[in-house]
């Protein structure tokens, strides 16, 4: 079970959080300007990497805030935690 440092509350047990999938999937600013394939890409396609992954988490049973986590999907090691709109502390390896 992970220990996640909420940017607002500090380190808390994983059971307090909800997972939100890959981060930085921006909604097209003008949905009508993208074709169906691009829209489907936004809706469904995710990178699912082995290694460094940036993902959204929600402190569901705490402050209810969303934030981003950079995590190694192999070792489960968390390398960075940052707020929406921010970039990870260090460039991903």
């Amino acid at each position: 079970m992970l220990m996640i440092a909420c940017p607002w509350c500090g380190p808390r047990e994983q059971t307090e959080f909800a997972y939100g999938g890959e981060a930085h999937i921006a909604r097209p600013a003008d949905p009508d300007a993208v074709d169906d394939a691009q829209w489907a890409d936004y809706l469904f396609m995710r990178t699912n990497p082995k290694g460094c992954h940036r993902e959204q988490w929600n402190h569901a049973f705490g402050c209810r805030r969303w934030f981003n986590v950079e995590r190694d999907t192999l070792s489960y090691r968390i390398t960075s935690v940052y707020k929406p709109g921010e970039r990870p502390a260090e460039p991903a390896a």
Partner: protein
Amino acid sequence: MTSGHRLAEGGRIDRLKPLAFTFNGRRYGGFAGDTLASALLASGVTLVARSWKYHRPRGVVGAGVEEPNAIVQLESGAFSVPNARATEVSLYEGLTARSVNCWPGPEIDFMALVQLFSGLMPAGFYYKTFMWPRRLWKKYEHYIRKASGLGEAPAVADASTYDKMNAYCDVLVAGAGPAGLAAALAAGRSGARVIVADEQAEFGGSLLSLGSAPLPRIGGRAAGHWLDAALRELRAMPNVRMLPRSTVFGYHDANYLTIAERRHDHLPLGERAGCRERIWRVRARRVVLATGAIERPLVFGNNDRPGIMLASAASTYVNRYGVRLASRAVVFTNNDSAYGSALDLYHAGIEVAAIVDSRRSPGGEVVQKVRDASIEIIGGSVVVDTRGRRHLSAVRVVQMDGERLTGRPRHIECGLLAMSGGWSPVVHLHAQSGARPRFDVARACFVPGEAIQGERSAGACNGTFDLESCMGEGAAAGAQAAALSGFVARATKPPAVEASAPKAQPLQPLWLVPSPRGVSRGPRQFVDFQNDVSASDIALAAREGYRSIEHVKRYTALGFGTDQGKLGNINGMAILARELGQEISATGTTTFRPNYTPVTFGAIAGRDVGELFEPVRTTALHAWHEERGAVFENVGQWKRPRYFPRDGESMHEAVRRECLAARNGVAIMDASTLGKIDIQGPDAATFLDLVYTNAWRKLAAGRCRYGIMLDENGMVMDDGVTTRLAENRYLMTTTTGGAARVLAWMERWLQTEWPNLKVYNTSVTDHYATAAIVGPRSREVLSAVCSDIDLSAAAFPFMSCRQGAVAGAAARVMRISFSGELAYEVNVPANEARHVWDALLAAGAANGITPYGTEAMHVLRAEKGYIIVGQDTDGSVTPADLGMEWLVSKDKDFIGRRSLLRPDTARDDRKQLVGLLSEDPSVVIPEGSQLVDDASASASAPVPMLGHVTSSYESPALGRSIALALVKAGRRRTGEMLLAPLRDGRRIRARIVSPVFLDPEGTRQNA
């Protein structure tokens, strides 16, 4: 009570505290400090079980967690524990246990007949024989499981309670043997928060089993005195928590470990109170693993007779429990440690007939001590077979030259064979942490590999077997763990150990003793005692082409027992490696998964059982509903009245009465469970425009509007009425089950996609109680308790909201309707709900005001063709599919809009919501019925399915059955006949009609 099997003195038992217990229906005696296993052995009971497959007689092999044979059903009824290891069961007064896996008992066992056919049961026997043909497996299975099963699950509810504890510490020490104690002392002295857990009742590990013979001295005093002092010091430290009878059974991510603490099982049933077991969920900055090692058995012919046990177990029974195991013993070994056991037996007055050592010329200090005791040492020899019916009577010893047996066999009579094939470090937790143990050829065992998490192994689990080095490693690991946690650990020299393990001669790997007649033809050489897996089974698996240890494990059942192969797995891997001509490191181990030892379901469930399993939500009017005899249904976590039966009424009759009251007079419903979200902020309207399909900016304050929300795929996910309370304030209602989901979903969009919008959402579902007053007489009833709101149709039109006092309570009254009738929803603070509700009922008494439940609500809304999200939709339904294009704005963006433009969502032959009228008006088509074309009646299956029935009721207002359905291109098919073929053979014909069955113009609700 004494017996000839108990030594007159010595050990850690209290001979002044005799205890009586019952095993397989017979009464025996033991002493405080005994385990069930030691008490049985001291009572002369050596045949304790029958084996799993062949029902061979089996005795106690080990003295701890590794025991494969002495598995018992402990107690009965609510206190019953299946598959308890007798070696780990502390004896208490009145204990009752019986053998598992034998009937009527281990001495005369019916299934032992199966032994006669053992040659017919090779590896994979169950797969090959019983699983085929599949049809018959169902017949066999019951009998096979009964014959081969272990303990029985208790039939009655568990009488005990269980808890979970959360703990944080700087240093967690797993194991309180010499290495663990040294680590705990070093870490504790630094001030670090330490938890030290050990599975045994007493801390001390191997120190508890030391004999009088080569008694080591630690730090200048007897080992026992050092132990007492160490425990005293630890107890005195406020920063150290000591958990005896506590097994660290899981090592998970981020140094999260789980410990099962058994608090009761050593007490007589009558003295057990409070919590039986606790699961400790521990986050540790650093972990010191000091989990020790388990001695390996040797694999030779008929190595499973009662009377054959691990040399270390023999030492434990003699030294710790004062058991006189036999009058004559033989020791069989490939290493030095069993020489200590020989001396333990010798000093306890047991004649040691010989030590059979596979090494050609054993020598060294401990060997010399054995020679000094005039014990014969037979070097370069092995035990190849044993004799005895229900107990060992003799062993057969043959000289070994390389892998070849030579010379004449020699028989030695004995009642005990103490064996040692070396030691296997308990690397389980290390492996669970994600690390990979590696095979150390020099020490012939798996040792910890590179650490992945914050852990370090010390002592025997690190492949270090002499006492002084163990304690040195423990102290160093404890000090390092404290330092890495930010504490200053004083450099303390580990205590000097005198006369512990003199320089040992190396072990000679001996994974499989050569068989005089070959592995397949000779007597069975058991590798896994619990699952009756022998060396020939592994050889067969290899011959049949199995290469991976994981596959061989599953094919032969090696390591599948409740002991999870703690005793036999390493031997099995080595034998497989030999068969495959590989190095042991190439074969590797099977995966070490949590849990290290079985954990009870009770402990895992903890308090989350019964009514605490899931929260139950009730409205402020729940007590009233109960008084009125409501029948409840679960909607999400809510309890909602389904209907209110009067004396003798069936559900059908009650719902009919409730529906007619709403249509013809006045009825009242508790609608408090609908989700309510208070939405405020200057951008609230902008936000509502994004989450709803229709437009919200122009909605005037005091007006209500129905809206549907889509997910980004364009599918309907929730609906409800939202009211504009003020310029920048809205009150949104959601479905009862969707409230939390909708709030979380809106928050996610606001926080991650539109953080620039100034919008604040607050759940107010529980703050307000809602009474829906429904029917043509509703205005009359409400006006009797509400004088400051003009309720006239002109002043208070449909889909609007007014504030005022209802029965004196501040209320928001909304004129909205989920029934198609003139209706009002009165929202008051939850604390005033009962008062207002009572006043409304009193005001409506003359008009026969009728409380109704969710069932009548469903009928009323279906008559109007109003959907229920989740019943008439399923996550694949668009607004157009529901005929709600009129709700979809063309002038703005909203979540899901772009997806509605995809070719698939724009198709005109999608499943659409329609009404259905069965040809026979008295027939209610079952919900969920599949629908096919009427012409399919004569066609042969399969026929294309056109859709399914989503809602179906008898309508009291229409005097016939009605249904809603999703049907392919349904609206185009209006007027066509469909067929609902049912499982029971009925075929119901039904015509497609408009989903609005009643008052399509809406004159009633606008009245």
